[in-house]
């Protein structure tokens, strides 16, 4: 186990006191320390949003890109250097709204990366508008008559799209959060963890208490390899309870890095040796 202080950033944190993001940040550091991933071997990738500031608050490589666009660079980085561990950290707006198309296709590509979604069911950075996971009918700082769209179910969507690791947790369950992160990082393939977290400033409905009263951890009798059952669990959300833990896990599906003949070679692409005269053999067919 590495010293957790290795991951301490000097940057001043701009999150509200009591924000669920703090628990997530702490869990990432602990998971990395316990898995002995050195800061130089870890890349935190994000888009834009409160959650997307995470790369600034952990001392590791980081790519804080454009809103909704965390997954494309994350995959590009992994393709070029498969030795790096990639964690994509973004919010529900970034991951499921602006970045919805990338979400679906990253699942299809199944690279060995971990995506955590800080899901507070509201837009924080832009001050309280409805997000793709805001409840139907909820009044917000923009939807004055209430949200008129049905909320997206990201877990069900991920399972249907073919994701091989789909989990949910809550920032109030710190040990489960850290352990799921470790499982997700160790999972071979794309892994999604939807992390329910209260937004203390802008979401007065889905509070810490609201989540605490509804979440329940799936016990050992639950078989996460059963896809139909998993879909059923994924659809469970609200007053009837919110299951947490690994909702779906499928082992053995090939990852993109194994399928792509160039990436599958021993040395990562970044170490490729190339000289101008290597082009000569490609010019022959045009002579």
């Amino acid at each position, binding site marked *: 186990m590495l010293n957790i202080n290795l991951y301490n950033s000097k940057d001043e944190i701009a999150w509200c006191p009591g924000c669920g993001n703090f628990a997530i940040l702490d869990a990432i550091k602990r998971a990395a320390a316990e898995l002995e991933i050195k800061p130089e071997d870890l890349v935190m990738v994000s888009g834009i949003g409160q959650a997307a500031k995470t790369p600034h608050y952990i001392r590791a490589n980081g790519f*804080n890109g454009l809103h909704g666009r965390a997954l494309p660079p994350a995959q590009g980085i992994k393709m070029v250097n498969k030795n790096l561990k990639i964690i994509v950290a973004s919010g529900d707006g970034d991951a499921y709204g602006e970045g919805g*198309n990338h979400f679906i296709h990253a699942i299809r590509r199944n690279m060995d990366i971990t995506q955590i979604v800080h899901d507070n069911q509201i837009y924080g950075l832009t001050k309280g508008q409805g997000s793709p996971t805001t409840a139907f009918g909820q009044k917000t700082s923009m939807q004055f008559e209430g949200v008129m769209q049905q909320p997206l179910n990201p877990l069900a969507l991920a399972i249907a799209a073919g994701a091989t690791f789909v989990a949910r947790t809550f920032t109030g369950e710190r040990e489960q959060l850290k352990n799921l992160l470790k499982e997700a990082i160790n999972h071979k393939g794309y892994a999604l963890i939807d992390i329910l977290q209260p937004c203390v400033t802008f979401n007065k409905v889905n509070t810490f208490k609201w989540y605490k009263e509804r979440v329940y951890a799936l016990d050992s009798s639950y078989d996460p390899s059963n896809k139909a059952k998993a879909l059923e669990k994924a659809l469970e959300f609200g007053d009837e309870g919110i299951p947490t833990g690994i909702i779906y896990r499928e082992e053995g599906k090939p990852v993109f890095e194994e399928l792509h003949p160039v990436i599958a070679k021993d040395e990562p*692409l970044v170490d490729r040796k190339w000289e101008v005269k290597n082009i000569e053999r490609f010019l022959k067919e045009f002579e």
Partner: protein
Amino acid sequence: MEFNILVGGEAGQGMDTISDFLEKVIKLNGYYVFSNKDYMSRARGGNNFTQIRISDKQLFSHSNKLDFIIALDKNTAEFHVDRLNDKGVIILDEGIKFEHEKAISLPLVKLANELGLSRAVGMMAIGATMKYFGLSLEGFERFIPTKFTEQVRNINIEAVKKGYSLIDSQYNLEKRNIEDTLLLNGNTAIALGAMAGGLNFYSAYPMTPATSVMTYLSKKQVEAGMIVEQVEDEIAAINMAIGASYAGARAMTGSSGGGVSLMVEAFGLAGIMETPLVVLDSQRPGPATGLPTRTEQSDLSFLLTASHGEFPRMVMSVRNAEDAFYQTFRALNLADRFQTLVIILTDQYLADSKVTVPSFKLDDLKIESHIADGKVLAKGEEYKRYKLTDNGISPRLIPGQVPGQVVLVDSDEHTEDSHITESAEVRIAQMEKRMNKLEMLKEYVEEPEYFGVESPEILLVGWGSTYGALKEAVETLNGEGVNIGALSFGDLYPLPTKKLTNYAAKAKVIVNVEQNYTGQLGKLIAQETGILMNKSILKYDGREIYGEELVERVKGEVM
């Protein structure tokens, strides 16, 4: 000496096979080729054609003259017969009812069926064409596609020979020796230039006429050790390429105008993150879907400022297939040196025109990698990605390469150590650091190529693919005693101004020649130098201007 052949028919009739074969045979016999395609946006039907221009000198443009037509359908015969010169002929199958004094009806289908392969019609037409021009049959077998079975191969060889016996020779193109050459189109030249320059990452979404760059790269990715990835949209394409570049790849993306429009937000990301990136725009007429399979130069104004905010960028265009190879190579070096965005403009005309070019000279080419290593850091020093330096370029480490050091990049305005800031002082320092690259880029831009008399009365200015038309028109007009010259720009931004100010001072009339409606180079020149165009020759019908056409327009509109 010059001849022009047209091969036309409906999409799906195998025109590409015929024209590819003829081009190779002509090259084998020691003649230069310039062939351009004219096709409709459909996989079947319509009237598609390829024009093959042949000369004993290097060619840079197509021509509208015709000496010979291979008509695979009636439309081709009807559409193009009037362009044939006095001696010109048109060959077609006897089954196509087309009565004309220039028509030579041949029993192509009947003979092909006798050989047992109805598709051999094309090979028979090739044989007849070779005979007409007096091209030698020697060695043609090597061009029969290798994908064919032995039996089909033999029938095709037989078909060429049979076609050869069908008509009489009108010309006698004897085998010549020419310097080492390559026969390729502009998009392939771009792909090869990129590969030579160390490209190892290309992510894109298919869009005509940029797709064939990606297709070639994809075909070679395993052999060359590159990653060529088709992604869900152009937004993903550019963001993925930026991620790859951050991780240490030589990365590029490409599309046509519509796809490039989608990429625009991330131009600024490359700019503020200071990540090297090359973006290819293979232009076609817009706006929106426009004319998908035709040509235009209408994305220049758009790309000069595309994306919000201000950051340094370089915009260059390629003028022909040879230029495309060297400039793409250079673009990757410049993006790496200045850690910013370099945009390459080409267009459908260059993308699909196949041309004989002198073999590429590789000895003078050098891959300049500017990725730093741990030596740039003093003992105990923590790496800062955006460290302020004398010239604004910070040493670029890539993640995972230096023990204990991390590399953070950010789309927000940031401090030297990459963290988000609102500080006015830091903002000014980082803006000035980045924008200074634009000043440095001015030292690296290449002057336009000039052709014509040293003190021209009429100065034509153009960019990119009009190179061939400008060169040919000036040669013709100079030959007729007209006092004219032309500047053909490759690099466009920062705008190289030395030759421009020199020749503009001598000229009485300056005319911009562009494939667009608004005269975008003319505007750029006015903006950067205050030099105003006196006249414009603009074309926006989706068809590339050619030498003779430009001569006529200069005579009609300028002289």
